[in-house]
């Protein structure tokens, strides 16, 4: 396929594994962890971040020859803030409950390091189409971590997925109990640590030597 060859393919698929923004580049941790107590807000957050990063990348990439280097941070922040404000208003209009669960974390997409990092590192030096794919790739790379966390935490924390009961009543009758600990914030970060552990055990070249 001509549209997905070489560099563009790397831009799209790299962030899913070896260049994952969350567990390898350690960007965007701030908002990743607080929204994953349930699966639904995690999915919404993943979609929101993917959309914002992809669009912001395209806009910055289109403007990259017009922006003077000295003021590029302000321009990037303004583009990001505008997109985030639009996403936030859309969520308020069409998914009010989820928006309330996400609280300030929708707004915090603006200071999400993934967003700034991709605009600075990729969109400023590449055309709109690779930038768009790079944004999608990074958004999805961030998204799958969020979805895994949300899945594990909701399943073990409250026995449900997307609000539907998954663990059958028989289990509870037999003495099974939900692990309320999973719903608490520190478990998100502990699970991320475990994901990093597994990921690095499989990819030996990512291990830190020091």
């Amino acid at each position, binding site marked *: 396929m001509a549209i997905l060859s070489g560099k563009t393919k790397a831009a799209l698929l790299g962030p899913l594994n070896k260049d994952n923004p969350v*567990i390898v580049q*350690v*960007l*965007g*941790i*701030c*908002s990743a*962890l*607080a929204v994953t107590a349930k699966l639904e807000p995690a999915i919404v957050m993943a979609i929101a971040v993917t959309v914002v990063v992809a669009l912001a990348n395209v806009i910055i990439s289109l403007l990259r020859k017009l922006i003077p280097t000295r003021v590029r*941070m*302000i321009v990037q*922040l*303004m583009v*990001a*803030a*505008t997109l*985030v*404000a639009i996403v*936030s*208003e859309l969520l308020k209009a069409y998914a009010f409950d989820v928006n309330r669960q996400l*609280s*300030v974390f929708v*707004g*915090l997409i*603006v*200071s*999400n*390091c993934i967003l*700034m990092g991709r605009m600075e590192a990729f969109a400023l030096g590449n055309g709109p189409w690779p930038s768009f794919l790079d944004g999608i790739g990074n958004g999805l790379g961030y998204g799958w971590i969020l979805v895994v966390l949300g899945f594990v935490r909701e399943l073990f924390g409250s026995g449900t997925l997307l609000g539907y009961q998954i663990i059958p009543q028989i289990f509870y009758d037999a003495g099974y109990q939900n692990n309320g600990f999973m719903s*608490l*914030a*520190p*478990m*998100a*970060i*502990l699970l*991320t*640590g*475990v994901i*990093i*552990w*597994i*990921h*690095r*055990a499989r990819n030996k070249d990512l*291990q*830190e*030597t*020091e």
Partner: protein
Amino acid sequence: MEAINLIIRSIFIENMIFAYFLGMCAVLAVSKDFKASIGLGLATLFVMVITVSINYIVVTYVLKEGALSWLGEEFASVNLSVFSLHIFVAVTASFVQVVEMIVEKYAPRLYNQLGIFLPLMAVNCAVVAGSLFMEQREFANIGIAAAYAFGSGVGWMLAIAVMASIREKLQYSHVPKPLKGLGITFIITALVGIGFMSFSGISI
């Protein structure tokens, strides 16, 4: 009295790092060395108190619904809170820029010590979150808002200092290879976070 309660709450119970995990990026990057982490903590505290106060004034007199009524009757129904994010980011970024220039001019030694951390403050999640929480909670006056920012800033500084001192000790321990560096830092943060949760039973 309310302000003191709020400060204690935001340092321990609602700690920016251990309860909300905000500003983690900076913590993971900087908390390898105790001195640098204190410097960054102080700078964050300062920026946080000032920007939250400025943003409080802007929110109360310009952005909130009905906030523009001092301009005249016809403005009483204007609600500009859609733009709050733009304002917060712009205020934070420009204030960080100003602080950077002042520190560079009058305290070059401190400037060299802080290095890259100063400009990075503009995208520190904890600082922006301070303003967003301030808007969400609708504090009664600017003193309370500043007290909240102060408490959050001190809490953030405390947290990054704790993480840095644990990580300095950690250099002498045998960590499984895949867990080295990033992985173990995450797990330690989680464990300290669990410790901090014991504060949540306290009511003040």
